[in-house]
């Protein structure tokens, strides 16, 4: 199997998310699209640190792990940060969706016609 395959699959997942955002009319589906795209990017970020046979960068008392065999821990820290940001964005979007549903009684974005032009 091609070594680039995981990255390509990440991009495909990202495209699925973007497709959902652009083409769906239901607010919840749009939010799901944002979440899918976000997870694709997070996955991509973790994959950057991947190393064949690598170990997590934590020293152990019971076995010897050489620094050379450790994976790069920085992307792991970064992906945690980006997950937290994603959590905040998603929570905010869902709160908005609930409020919008209360105002319009529908999740259909084409029926929300306050703003135009």
């Amino acid at each position, binding site marked *: 199997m091609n070594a680039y395959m995981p990255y390509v699959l990440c991009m495909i997942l990202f495209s699925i998310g973007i497709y959902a955002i652009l083409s769906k009319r239901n607010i919840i589906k749009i939010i799901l699209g944002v979440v899918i795209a976000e997870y694709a990017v997070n996955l991509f970020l973790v994959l950057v640190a991947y190393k064949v046979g690598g170990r997590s960068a*934590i020293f152990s*008392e019971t076995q010897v792990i050489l620094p050379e065999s450790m994976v790069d821990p920085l992307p792991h820290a970064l992906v945690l940060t980006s997950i937290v940001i994603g959590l905040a964005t998603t*929570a905010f979007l*869902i*709160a908005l969706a*609930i*409020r919008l*549903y*209360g105002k319009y*009684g529908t999740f259909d974005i084409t029926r929300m016609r306050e703003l135009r032009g």
Partner: protein
Amino acid sequence: MSKEHDRGMSVIVKTVTRLTVGLILLYGIYIILHGHLTPGGGFAGGVIIALAFINLDLAFGGSAAAKIFSKRNTGLVEALGAVMFLTLALLGMKYGGFFDNFLHPDGNPGQLVSAGIIPLENIAISLKVGAGLFGIFLTLIVLQKFESEKK
């Protein structure tokens, strides 16, 4: 059937929740306190603690957990955690820099009391995340109730 069983899920779920919710809480605290030794830390532990409260709310229905931890208090605890975190970071400026680890420059591997301010910051983060997440949950519930009542 007592009045307690009018709301929420079935007796099985309630019993299991009653047994496990303390363990979940304990596990969250463990994750927080060992954050500098093992994978995990303030964020993961805070999420687990928030889940324990959310679990209560789901199983017993309505405002079971909100009686213990009201929405107003979640806001306060969240702000407190943030202020605590920032204070620790600012205290470091006195010793050499923003976020300077001024308590224990050299931690001992595997020791619980080591790593200086990192465990303290983990606690601050867990307060912020736990209260914040539970606050988000309560807000969404309140919004939902508010909207359904209006119809």
